[in-house]
């Protein structure tokens, strides 16, 4: 009997506020960006909105009246001497020209929750932790319980590589560590993140190989007061903390440091609180009796799609892949997935795409008791819907008015969906 190997992967975003603000800025600029008239290069630059900005230092700033304070800074800014907590004027003097973003803890928290949900693609058991975003609070992290999923991903190193690449592609600077003990993975990833945040990624690589006893006590995520107290008495590493008697530490610093140590060493199980997967966006229509009338089926599809799009609009998302399931009495079950070129929350477009397929459905003979009983639509993949300014790009737009790049791409994607639905999956190609 195969034994289930327990394996945990901890991911700690190093500069979450900066990465989140930059991603938001990138998305906003690509949505609003328009190539200037008369410039051939403008369209080329437009294809890479962030290319010219990657090397500009970025600061996340919290303003208190007229005084600003740096909350987070990118690696480039850190290399120039900026650190969180520094006065904005001082940081400006260190960095020169820098991108400044307003600190928005609520938005950061929401984005991190979405990140935790996104992590569910690797394993169904994900634990996420984040604090209120205070200055001294430890970095948020995501812990993936990869038990049972390693075979799917081709082993632990491959899964870690996949996560690493996916995060790098999204511009998230992160520290990743994996271990058979959940607490050890978290401690190691926290230590690596600390080294990276201090601007020494080489130390991070060394930490990944170092024994856990050599890691600093801050990596245990014990309270700040306890850390400062332990440092006062010369306890700087996990090994030194372990060497002290348990009662002495508890008497002086409370139970928290030893509890964190027990969790890190595996003596105490990790308090795993799994992230709940978001409710699926789905819509179902059940007929009272088997239905073999095409008009009724079309109406049912219309109603289901309307219900689906209402849910999508509530979430401000569009569907990128739609699972369709049609079950009937005396008929073979029909299942399939329709992939769309762009996120869509428009029932009319979904109907346009589905219509050729629905028309080809075999409905059976009503006299023989055959017919459709249930139609189910489920959004297998969601995409972000871009917000449009009403009236600017609508039907009242003049033909000579240029269409924003994102809108033009969207229009083409809708056309491709439309053509593929009727002419076949391979009818449209890119050279």
């Amino acid at each position: 009997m195969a034994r289930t190997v327990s394996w945990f992967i901890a991911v700690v975003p190093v500069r979450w506020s900066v990465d989140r603000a930059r991603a938001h800025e990138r998305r906003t600029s690509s949505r609003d960006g328009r190539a200037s008239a008369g410039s051939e290069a403008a369209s080329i630059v437009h294809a890479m909105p962030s290319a010219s900005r990657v090397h500009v230092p970025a600061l996340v700033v919290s303003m208190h009246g007229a005084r600003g304070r740096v909350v987070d800074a990118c690696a480039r800014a850190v290399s120039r001497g900026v650190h969180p907590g520094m006065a904005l004027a001082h940081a400006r003097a260190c960095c020169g020209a820098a991108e400044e973003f307003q600190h928005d803890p609520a938005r950061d928290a929401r984005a991190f929750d979405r990140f935790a949900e996104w992590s569910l693609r690797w394993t169904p058991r994900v634990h996420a932790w984040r604090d209120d975003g205070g200055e001294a609070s430890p970095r948020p992290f995501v812990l993936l319980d990869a038990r049972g999923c390693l075979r799917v991903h081709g082993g632990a190193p491959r899964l870690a590589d996949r996560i690493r690449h996916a995060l790098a592609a999204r511009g998230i600077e992160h520290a990743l560590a994996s271990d058979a003990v959940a607490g050890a993975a978290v401690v190691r990833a926290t230590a690596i993140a600390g080294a990276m945040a201090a601007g020494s990624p080489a130390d991070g690589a060394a930490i990944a190989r170092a024994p856990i006893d050599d890691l600093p006590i801050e990596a245990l995520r014990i309270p700040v007061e306890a850390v400062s107290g332990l440092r006062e008495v010369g306890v700087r590493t996990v090994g030194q903390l372990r060497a002290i008697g348990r009662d002495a530490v508890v008497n002086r610093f409370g139970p928290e440091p030893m509890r964190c140590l027990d969790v890190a060493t595996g003596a105490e199980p990790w308090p795993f609180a799994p992230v709940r997967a978001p409710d699926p966006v789905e819509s179902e229509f059940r007929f009272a009796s088997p239905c073999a009338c095409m008009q009724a089926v079309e109406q049912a599809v219309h109603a289901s799609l309307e219900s689906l799009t209402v849910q999508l609009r509530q979430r401000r998302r569009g569907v990128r892949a739609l699972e369709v399931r049609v079950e009937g009495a005396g008929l073979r079950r029909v299942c399939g997935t329709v992939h769309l070129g762009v996120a869509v929350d428009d029932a009319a477009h979904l109907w346009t795409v589905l219509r050729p397929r629905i028309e080809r459905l075999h409905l059976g003979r009503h006299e023989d008791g055959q017919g459709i009983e249930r139609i189910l639509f489920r959004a297998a993949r969601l995409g972000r819907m871009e917000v449009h300014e009403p009236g600017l790009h609508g039907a009242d737009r003049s033909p000579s008015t240029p269409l924003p790049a994102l809108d033009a791409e969207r229009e083409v994607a809708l056309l491709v969906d439309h053509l593929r639905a009727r002419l076949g999956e391979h009818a449209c190609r890119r050279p």
Partner: protein
Amino acid sequence: MNHAAWKNRMEAMAPAWNADAGQVPLGWAAADAALGGGLPRSGLHEWWGERVHVRAVVVHVAWQLLLDADRRGDRSSVAWIGGETWPQPEHLVRGTRAWLTWMFGGGGGIGDGSDARARACSPRGSPQWPPQWPDARMHERSIMVDVPAGDRGARLWAVEQAARCRGLCAVIADARGFDMPATRRLQLAARDVPVLAWAGSARRRSGASAAATRWSVEEDRGPRPVPWLRGMHALAERIPAEPAWLVRLERARGRAVDPSCMPVDRAVASWQWQGVSEPPAAVRRAAQRRSRRVAEAADLATRRAADATAAWPGAHAADAVGASVSPSLPARRAGRGRDRMTSRGERWAGHVRDGVDNGRAA
């Protein structure tokens, strides 16, 4: 109602093209003049001729439409509907032979905004004669739609859907066998997007059409110049002539085209030697990386020089860290071997400079 009033009324009901959409100059003087500024950015435009010849000319028109859309800030695409209209891969990249123009000073055609004479008198690399790079925008923004050639209804439907799409700047379609109602449908659908329809070989021309313009294309068999070569160049006589085509504007609705002297232009494959002055993104990124490395190296050299001055006030900084502190080239450490750490973790160069063992070495 007299004929003129009737014609005006019909034009008002169904204009030949959408006047709001504007026109795009094609670079063909006679045709542009006859159309009053260029090809309309809307409506159905019918092309007759052999497939290979029409395709080569239509590629030129598609490039002009795409460049015009980019100049207006419109990042729209081009749809090629029907396998017969699909271009060759080399048609989708402009300026693959731009190095010839750069080397021999020719070109000076439409759209690049340069003066051939001024360029011929100026050295290569000067602002009048900038280097040219290939331009793959058509490759990035083309959609190939495969429709069964025998299914005329599907072809018409696909062209109509594309003509209604606002994200396209041109639709190139296989319109063989489309009758009057079909062309009427397309003419009405193409309000915002020009549809360039290959209607078939000129020998089989038949039937009426509602197209806004009608063109015929045939191969030019007369003497042809080499456009990418400077006129007086010694190689001009030895190089085979470039392919060229005669493009004839036969009809333009709303415009008087005299059948006895139709506007005829000579078209050449100018997209092959007309590149862009902006380098591709990869080249630009590499240049940025290079300049950044150079700047960082210069910064590092300056800081090392400052450190060395602070460490050995009596010594010359450049002597300590290397003589090259040029801002354009990375500093090279001339005395690298002397600045190593000893096995006991001491700086060897420090002892040499100080000349005394200040107690650090055991």
